[in-house]
């Protein structure tokens, strides 16, 4: 049982080193102060032990200087921790442009992944080494959380909205994937593996095996099957706004105000179309809540986004 006793997780992402650095700093500070206080208490208890029955301690009321010292020094130390932690968080939060996007849908009790070119996985995630990967995640039911300990990344996966996380894997191998937000009976079974591959092997994996249509193609098919194209036409004569070129741009709303046409807005417009109606249009779009799954919503969004894609991307 004691061979290969794991003390510390592997560092398998570019981010892991940063997080471990701050961790070690904090372990050092914790060890220092815990041992200091522990030692002082023990030493004082021995040195000043009561030697006879009526003995009392010396009357010392306090010392402003000491109080200031042990207020200001800890304050300084924690401010360093705060600033360092904030910096690391900003780095974790902002994916670099051009990160490879993979859609993740969590549902009780499995993880579904969809690659941009159509490759689908369940409870697995294949990624290439050395390339930034951004996971765009939604839930079909309750709150889950996508956690890869060896990459030191985690984000809650919440129904009704999208959360994302990003990482750059640095070591080929297989790493644990855990659901990290209690989600019911099989919460501890909602686990899997992240496989990091050399770029050549990843390409081979992408093209081999059964694939389905890419999310963009699947989204286009849905767009037509669900008759979205009858109102959202290519030209301005439709009953709904033109969608080409709209992704990522500000949209003027009825009653004033603008909103950016991002993933969240497009999703909301499909499931709750009356919420933010575009200025100049009638509020006649029916809701598709219950008629499309989270995965299908991601496909529709991918399609709408593709209508704004710059040529050659």
């Amino acid at each position, binding site marked *: *049982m004691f061979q*290969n006793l*794991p003390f*510390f*997780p592997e560092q398998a992402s570019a981010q892991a080193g*940063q997080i471990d650095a*701050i*961790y070690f700093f*904090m372990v050092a*500070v*914790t060890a220092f*102060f*815990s041992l200091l*206080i522990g030692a*002082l208490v023990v030493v004082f*208890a021995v040195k000043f*032990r009561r030697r006879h029955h009526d*003995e*009392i*301690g*010396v*009357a*010392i009321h*306090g010392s402003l200087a000491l109080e200031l010292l042990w*207020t200001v020094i*800890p*304050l300084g130390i*924690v*401010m360093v*921790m*705060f600033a360092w*932690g904030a910096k690391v*968080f*900003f*780095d*974790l939060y902002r994916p670099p442009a051009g990160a490879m996007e993979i859609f993740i849908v969590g549902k*009780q009790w499995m993880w579904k992944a969809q690659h941009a070119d159509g490759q689908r996985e369940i409870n697995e995630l294949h990624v290439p080494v050395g390339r930034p990967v951004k996971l765009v995640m939604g839930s079909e*039911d*309750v*709150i889950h*959380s996508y*956690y890869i*300990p060896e990459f*030191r*990344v*985690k*984000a809650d996966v*919440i*129904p*009704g909205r999208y959360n994302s996380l990003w990482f750059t894997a640095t070591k080929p191998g297989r790493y*644990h994937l*855990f659901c*990290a*937000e*209690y989600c*019911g*009976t099989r*919460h*501890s*079974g909602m686990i899997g593996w992240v496989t990091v591959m050399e770029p050549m092997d990843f390409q081979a994996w992408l093209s081999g095996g059964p694939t389905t249509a890419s999310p963009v193609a699947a989204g286009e098919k849905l767009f037509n099957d669900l008759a979205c194209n009858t109102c959202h036409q290519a030209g301005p004569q439709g009953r709904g706004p033109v969608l080409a070129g709209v992704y990522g741009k500000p949209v003027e709303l009825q009653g004033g105000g603008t909103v950016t046409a991002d993933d969240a807005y497009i999703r909301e417009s499909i499931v709750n179309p009356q919420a933010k109606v575009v200025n100049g249009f009638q509020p006649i779009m029916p809701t598709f809540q219950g008629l499309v799954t989270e995965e299908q919503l991601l496909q529709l969004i991918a399609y709408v986004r593709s209508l704004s894609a710059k040529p050659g991307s």
Partner: protein
Amino acid sequence: METPSYLNDGHGLKSWLLTKDHKRIALLYLISITAFFIMGGLFAMFVRLELLTPAGDLLNAETYNKMFTMHGVVMVFFFLIPSIPAVLGNFLIPIMIGAKDLAFPRINLLSWYIYILGGLFTFVAALSGGVDTGWTFYTPYSTAAANSHVILAALGVFITGFSSILTGLNFIVTVHRMRAPGLTWFRLPLFVWAHYATSLIMILGTPVIAITVLLVAAERALHMGIFDPALGGDPVLFQHLFWFYSHPAVYIMILPAMGVISEIVQTFARKNIFGYSFVAFSSLAIAIIGFLVWGHHLFVAGQSVYAGLIFSFISFLVAIPSAIKVFNWTATIYKGSVSLDSPMLYAFGFIGLFTIGGLTGLFLSTMGLDIHMHDTYFVVAHFHYIMVGGAIMGYLGGLHYWWPKITGRIYSEFWAKIAAGLVFVGFNLTFFPQFIAGYLGMPRRYHEYPPELQVWNVMSSAGASILAVGYALPLVYLVYSLFAGERSPADPWGSKGLEWEIPSPPPTANFEVTPIVTHGTHQYAPSKEVGIV
């Protein structure tokens, strides 16, 4: 012929169940929270037994999920939050301020009945099959997906909250209006300051959890769309509402324990506290700042980065007043006359373990680091260091320290020292390995786990069995002392404070004549001068 005291002033069940005496109400609470502690401990025992092996082979997943949920619900709402205030606070605050009782004795009794009613709802929920949402009741799982007795448990929490609110109200009014002549705020025992600060949190925070669990019950029963996105609600709204109370709640659990430690350290070092006003004000600072940090539970929930930054910053600030207390307690021991009686052993244990627990909280306040650590066993270890290594040690220390006053009996110091040692060793063996397992990535609330984590889990479960013995021992020797313990004088420890100037156990009216106070507590030097009381 027994000397008259509150214990024999009136006999029979009615004289206890309809009492208005704060001391008897404290004992009613003592018995009931001990029962809940045993219940919560049994749930923990099942959790740790299951986690001895990586596979889910002792309980099925649903039952396991109910075990950790019920452990949390019972321990937080029915043991930790009431424990010190309802038992020691109720007993001691009137005496420490020279009063005959609290400001509202009947409301005090009502608080106990409300607590029992809420506890009954929770007990019935447990007997009916339990609840499996985690003590945090996150939505939409709790409102839309869980198949367990959520509404019953939520109502149990809702009802018990009023017990907390009324106790807090009682304490605040009592401290403002019923201090004996000469007892200015800065002559109050630090135990009273700690409970005053705690009471502020109780009355301001508890209404929020009350409405929140009510909304959960409403959404579940009536399908109102508040938190469930399928009904148009926002699941993260629940988290904000829940933690707005539940973070200050942890300060409700720790502040009274800190008050106990201040009293114990002064008595057993025979020295007044170093930095009285700093320790007093730090209690208020913790209470106030503690209301502003709840968002550190939502760092990975997709909360705005800027909100996260603010919550992280303030979470670091709230650690400072706690650090000030630890340094002041340590400085109090310096040049004291230290006696290592069992209450002092618990106090030392508290100081060490609370320091570790508090510092590990800083890891979680660090935004970049919390991403990795959130919802892992690191968090579990952190809060158990504070709740068990801190709050429960404070409770046990206080129970031992004031046992002679409350019961008029002296317990076996030998067995008390053994128990304190077992608790300290057992506690560390249970929870330190969880820090390691957490950083390795073991998520919380996991019924099964990867096999390479087994060593840490076995150590943890082994520690839990030692801890259990350490907790069982006081049940035995404290109860034994009631029948066969040596009778205690008014001041068995050579302490200085109003509670040590009246008999052990006290008469119902506490003081024959209202004392006139001319100085603060724990003035040991000049040694033989007696204050005018």
